[in-house]
């Protein structure tokens, strides 16, 4: 399986994602934001970081960079595109997934392990995962997902919610919401479910010596589903 990770100026989880993808069997290529053409890929990843310093609005300038035209075409033709953290913010700015990401409710950067409940398994990302709840890791300042009532209804009608913040037993109550996201949303799909944007970093959970191993589970499952 071939994957591509886009590096924007200010990306800082690009290497971590490269390490993770390779560990689970992807042949990964790093793609520079100023390139025009996307290499042949089964998966494109927009990594975490502070693209363009998060100036103007997180993800806003990156969404207009050269390579994004190809990424958008690729996504619109059904290609698998995953945006993690800043990558999610970029996806939102392109309009490939609905909604916006606001500053965290308590106005502070948060770096910690969280639990997420898988809301929809009818897609290439989460199909065949036995667990209902995964332990992931978040590290962000602007992860407070928000959308209008109409948008929320549409998202729910189309089953576009991917994961919700919860406790270890899968309870998705407000107290387990780290950043104020509407309906505890931690990740969403486009209508067709080939595009996934999420705040948690599965690439930081790929080794028992790190924060945990549910990222390994996620990537192993993903590559098997893609095969």
């Amino acid at each position, binding site marked *: 399986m071939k994957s591509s990770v886009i590096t924007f*100026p200010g990306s*800082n*989880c690009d290497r971590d994602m490269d390490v993770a993808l390779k560990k689970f069997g992807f042949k990964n290529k790093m793609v520079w934001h100023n390139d025009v053409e996307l290499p042949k890929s089964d998966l494109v990843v927009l990594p975490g970081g*502070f693209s*363009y310093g998060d*100036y103007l609005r997180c993800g806003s300038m990156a969404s207009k960079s050269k390579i994004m035209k190809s990424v958008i075409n690729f996504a619109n033709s059904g290609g698998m595109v995953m945006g993690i953290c800043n990558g999610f913010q970029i996806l939102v700015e392109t309009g490939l997934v609905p909604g916006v990401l606001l500053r965290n409710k308590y106005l502070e*950067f948060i770096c910690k392990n969280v639990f997420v409940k898988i809301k929809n398994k009818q897609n290439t990302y989460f199909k065949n995962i036995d667990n209902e709840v995964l332990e992931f*890791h978040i590290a962000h300042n602007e992860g407070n997902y928000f959308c209008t009532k109409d948008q929320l209804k549409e998202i729910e009608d189309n089953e576009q919610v991917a994961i919700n913040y919860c406790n270890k037993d899968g309870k998705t109550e407000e107290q387990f919401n780290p950043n104020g996201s509407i309906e505890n949303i931690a990740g969403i799909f486009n209508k067709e479910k080939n595009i996934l944007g999420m705040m948690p970093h599965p690439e930081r959970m790929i080794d028992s010596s790190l924060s945990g191993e549910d990222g390994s589970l996620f990537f192993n499952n993903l590559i098997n589903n893609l095969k």
Partner: protein
Amino acid sequence: MIVNEQVAIDHGLKKDEYAKICELLKRTPNITELGIFSAMWNEHCSYKSSRLHLKKLPTKGKQVIQGPGENAGVVDIGDNDAIVFKIESHNHPSFIEPYQGAATGVGGIMRDVFTMGARPIANLNSIHFGSPQHKKTKNLLRGVVHGIGGYGNCMGVPTIAGQTNFDSSYNGNILVNAMTLGLVKKDKIFYSKAAGLNKPVIYVGSKTGRDGIHGASMASASFDEKIEEKKPTVQVGDPFTEKLLLEACLELMAGDSIIAIQDMGAAGLTSSSIEMASKGNLGIEINLNKVPCREAKMTPYEIMLSESQERMLIVLESGKEEQAKKIFDKWNLDFAVIGKTTKSKKIELFFDNEQVADIPVNTLVENSPMYDRKWKKVKLPKKNKIKKENLKNLKITDVLKKILANPNVCSKEWIWQQYDHTVMGDTIQKPGGDSGVVRVHGTNKAVAASVDSSAVYCWAHPLTGGKQVVCESFRNLISVGAKPVAITNCLNFGSPENEENMGEFVECVQGIGEAAKYLKFPVVSGNVSFYNQTKDEGIKPTPSIGGVGLIKDYKKMITMDFKEIDNIVLVIGKTEGHIDQSLFARNILDEKNGPPPEINLFNEKNNGETLLKLIDDGHIKSAHDVSIGGIITAVSKMCIKGNKGINLKKPKYLINEIEYFFAEDQGRYVIEVKKDNLKKVTDVLNKNAVHFDELGTINEDQLFINDKTKVSIDELRTSNTNWLTNYMSK
């Protein structure tokens, strides 16, 4: 502007220093030259009060590749890998403008590390604030934490450990010390020594603005009531540009076109160009019209003294300019050839086709002032006689809960959760333990780092305090299973012109030196911050020690959380019941006098090395050094982290329970071993003449003391975790 003695004094120079400048130049300097002298001769850049004493520190060792004198120290960790590290203060600016002050402190120290060719792999910090009740403390704390996070998080470098203290002596002068570790191949280390004639001098990075002018001079003076007016001397950081600069520099460094490289930190273009010239015994000629400027009509004076951030100066091999420029273009950074190396051994500056400065380099560096300041020796205070009946009425669990909730003991999770501590995917021990630990990417090795200070001990007796901080750093590394390699120090003191403060400095440095020498734990880098003083009131002497250690097989790393019910808990090292200057004495008994606990370097080394061997042999399940709050505080933290309880038994000693559990004797560790391994462990301890006491057995969720008193771990956790969150949310 006409330069005279008064203008020189306004620049922070002393009368005799100005006279010396005129004598060295054999004429009156012009304003640009005076600015350059004031920047190079201030305390912050010249170390004029400290140089004499810093020379006494041990700086060499088997693993030391580079000691003090470069941008950062470098140690060998085997397999052609080396760690570059340094700690630096950004105290004065952080008090004036906490967010930018702290942020640029972090940015500056990272630049010092990647200037040497190393990719930063971990950040740490030691921050000190005034009393929690002081009206400024909360905002300063919030601003500093946001600033540290704002810069480090954006750079994508994990902040893996740190230390936060509160004490009223910092009410008017907070401390922000930032430390960075970088990883480099031994044969790809870059230095700041210029070489060769007519080599192009290149400016890269951000444009030069009017921010931070006289920053280094501001940091070389005490504060007074006009401190708010000094805001313009604080630099403004842009971590995004620094991230680009990091990547661009490392890309350029992969080739072989760089002769010398130096970041523009304190005193900006002035100190970077002069240091490169001085080390290479060369001259440098700069055309200031070529310097990329952010604002129009900047004068030579402003350009030379600006402390705008995210800039580097490079001496390049001739003919490599185009190739280098391509890299900086790719990263959207300025790149300008601004001058060349010369044989004149002078700094020659030109602006609008006129020469605006012409100064021999040696007058700025070798001939800079050095003072043997007067200092007063501090006597060891007499011991307090603590009345035993005062202790009788105390309920041990109440005291414990109070101590766990003390601002200097409580959990700092509110702080470190705001720092990205997991980016780069190699953090195997997060903040909140004895040391932060990161793997050396792609290898089985890991590097541990910790930062410590003990201002209370240093204040009570600087010599003992100085030794203690080094020992504490040593212990924190050993507690995670790392072999201590070397240290970096950040020496925060009051005014050197005050004999008492100078005495504290001299004796702390002596203590640091003695301990570092005995423990073979050399000092490879550091900085001095004097004038942490508002009017006549200085801070408690606060040397911060950043220790670095190596774990050869990261799977052998130890954490402090208790692991398994029924395991046995021991304390290594002898408990004599030293209560003076303990957290217990100061905060529960309100007794602020007396000597700090004594340091026995033999025991320190022997206990530490023996424990390290036990860890290496796989006999230790968890470990934690005993520091402020004594044995019971250490044990409680291990319980809280591991979500386990313990049946504590006080061994039969002459001292009472309170003294045994809250004393702050040194050289001690709490360790957890399996029952089956107990004999093996105690045999090794006995064989090495290491004193130990058996403390008890791990249970499910309660802390029992001698079977009588009990308290639930949940209750202790609440005491420990709530204070800071509540304080910050009020």
